């Protein structure tokens, strides 16, 4: 982990290395890179974000490998558990499934927050994003997409946004807020 964190830290000091890591096999690195682009990037770096997103295509956000913990239940009570903890899975899962579950929505969120911070939502992303939001049930992802879409300043997407159903407080709230902001744009 020391090397991974050092690599992520380096993204904030050396933007020249960004392109090299957009398809890094470790999702932590891609997540860190997306955050770094959000901090330091410009409109010209949007293609890098697009490449990072490309890696997420087709990955399930809700395909949990069946993990079982020996000493405690698989819920919030593990937050305070310190001690011997063994974990086993109900069967063997491919590495991409394991990573998809660990990563769950984090890269999407980081990319769309980066778009928001850069202040430019690419026209070519609009339709695909709205389509994705219709079926995505990960509220963190939907919420971040809502926030990024404010950068479109495009009232014409309001009907499409109204068709999207927020699955929780956060996504519902951000949807409503985005519709309000765009309608006032």
């Amino acid at each position, binding site marked *: 982990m020391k090397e991974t964190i050092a690599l992520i830290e380096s993204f904030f000091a050396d933007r020249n290395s960004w392109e090299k890591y957009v398809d890094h096999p470790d999702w932590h690195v891609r997540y860190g890179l997306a955050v770094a682009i959000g901090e330091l990037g410009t409109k010209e770096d949007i293609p890098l974000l697009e490449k990072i997103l490309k890696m997420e295509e087709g990955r399930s956000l809700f395909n949990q490998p069946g993990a079982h913990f020996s*000493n405690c239940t698989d819920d919030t*009570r*593990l937050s305070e558990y310190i001690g011997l903890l063994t974990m086993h899975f109900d069967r063997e899962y491919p590495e991409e499934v394991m990573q998809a579950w660990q990563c769950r929505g984090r890269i999407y969120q980081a990319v769309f927050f980066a778009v928001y911070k850069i202040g430019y939502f690419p026209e070519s992303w609009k339709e695909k994003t709205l389509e994705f939001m219709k079926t995505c049930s990960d509220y963190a992802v939907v919420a971040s997409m809502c926030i990024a879409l404010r950068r479109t300043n495009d009232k014409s997407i309001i009907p499409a946004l109204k068709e999207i159903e927020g699955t929780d407080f956060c996504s519902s709230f951000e949807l409503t807020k985005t519709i309000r902001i765009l309608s006032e744009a």
Partner: protein
Amino acid sequence: MLENEYFLIDDIEALRRKVLEAGPGDQRNMLWNAITRSVRSSVFGFAWYAPFVALITREPRDIENAKAVIRAYVDKLDKMTYCMGLQFHFWCFAFPHAKICIYFQWLCELGVYTEEEKEEISAQLLNYQFTNFYYGMRTKPEPECVDNQTLSLALSNVIVGFLFTQGDKKSRIAEIMLRDGLKRVPEILGGFPKSGYSGEGSTYMDVVIGPSIWITVEVLERIWGKKGLLYAEFPPSMVRPIDMLKLIADSWMPGGLLLPWDNYGYQIGIRSALAYVAKKTGEAVYCDKLEHAVWSYDVGAGWAYDDLVWTLVHFPEKVSRDAYEKGWFVPEVGGVVCKNDRYVFQMWDDSAPNYPTRMNCNPNSVVFNAYDTPLSADGAKSHDCRRFEFENTWKTVNYLKMNENTSFNFGEGCVGGHSCVLIDGNEAMMAVTDGPQTDVAHCAKDENSVTGDVTPVYRQNYGDIELVRRKTTLVGEKFFVVEDAVRSEKKHSVTARFVLRPELVKADTGVRIEVNQGVALQLVPLNEGAEVRTEEVIGYPRKPENKSVLVDFTLPAAEKTVSRVLAFPARTVRPMDKIKGFKGIYTEKDLTAAEAEKLLGESEMTFDLDLPPYMEKDVPVCRKWWFKGKTALPEGATHLILPIGFINGRLFVNGEEISLQPFATSANLLYSYVEIPEAARRAGEAEILFFSEVPVDHYENGGDGRTGLFGGIRLAAAEEPETVLSASCIGGKLCVKTDRGSYEYAYKGMEDEA
């Protein structure tokens, strides 16, 4: 990493002196012994104490324990990413993580790590924060989302961010987390209502908000380099942290339990927030509640099981015992009248529209407490209880189990599950819009009353309702009058419902309950023609007894109704002296009483049962304990009071076994009053043989923790309670005749308002 100081500790040497030099009889000494004994006997059973003990003692064994704890925590992080809890409820993991980072900083400052170890652990702690809680914080709408979850996430980013941006090696990731967290924390504080009440009920205010508010103050003071933030106003609401902490203290009832102000029911409160504010203000209100807290180890505290540690860190140098006003009134929330061992809370805080779960619909509900004993019942029902399951209160959700829908009924959160007014007997009423639920409330100190107006929430359900107002008065510092004024365009029947603890006992007048802890409450309708109905409900609420008594006083349908009910508390058993010096043994296997007695005869260990044995003495952390003691029974002694928190208890008095089954549920929160057999009373002495299991770590009860023994064993004497023979309220005159005498008071009713 922060250097040259121990984060959140102002003066380490002063703290070490305070802890190590406290002598017997000093509560700090009791706390320190309890903490060190537990963790030295079972490092991973009480892991959250280990870094603090190392910080204070600097002994190699304690440092090794602390390092092992940090190592075990770091080793679990990767596994946690497969845990549903982390993925869906990340805020629960955020603050404990920040606490571990603080403890790690302490250990780094102690110089117990090599540079390589420090770097490796730092990387893992930083990564976990960055990928889970920085991400998590950004899921919460900014600045609108103001709750305990967002506070946990934002504060964890501030703490971890701050720690890793100090010193020589500054992390850029940490800088970002600190910057974004630091922007949100003051916004979140200022987003709390001016009252300081988060709206989430007493459990969340105390157990979840409580442990974070004082840390927020301390962290911001350090980062901003400012003092006095406890009293600073945070925009936009201009709430002050002291207001939140005051409300947390207010949610403690006499006797040490939290008000049953939400669907968690009665709870044991956390102590560190009280200790902090007691130290900072020196005010008696906090010192008194701290002194009367339940001191068994940490149960149910939010954000890590280290409440005792921080309680000790903040324990006030001087404990004020000045008299203080025990009543309180917060216009948006509720009010308490408390005098002469009689206490009533009336609540009118908003409930959640259409889905009153944690934020129950309990407009103007009253909670009675007398002689430090709760008399009302409230909370959530047990899973097999079908009462309060209304057709319109089923909900199906997909977040309780992975890939599975779960249906449950939240009907007990509606008005019928609380001591409220029912219109036309409608138990299923709840708030149905986002509109206001209350009108102006007030308190009148001169008449010891509080008044709440909850007309709007009733009007949401009945368009013709013009007034629903309740005034609760402590009359003559002796008894309560609960008065409801209801006005409407159409005729409605009005029921004043009271949800009380068991048991229902015979009363010549009105309705009477007697709780096991030696207090009775007699309810007498003051209106002629009131229909009286009682119902025992098994399974609601789950705690303390898994049972309640519903008492309804219903007046016929009318456009204007003024209902009055007298509530008269009286003591039936009076606690006497504590019995000390029980011989004790621990055992791995189940013993018969005879086998236990034999071993106890050879034991040299003695206990007072004020705490789990491993906190009271240097003994191993073991589950099964037998205790034996002998006491003379003074004239009048009729009961033994058993400690809070016994598990699978067995009690023998002079060889005769007394079933403790009736206390199996309630003992988790309350003392158990057990009648001494007649033969022992005649003999004038009692040989007591007591068995109890004690929790062996913080994670019992499925990970939620469980109360350990607390409070010792004492004798008690039955006494004849004062009972009401008749009561009336006519023409502004309140007359109550009891078996001891007659009381007459002027009483100003709400007829004019109705």
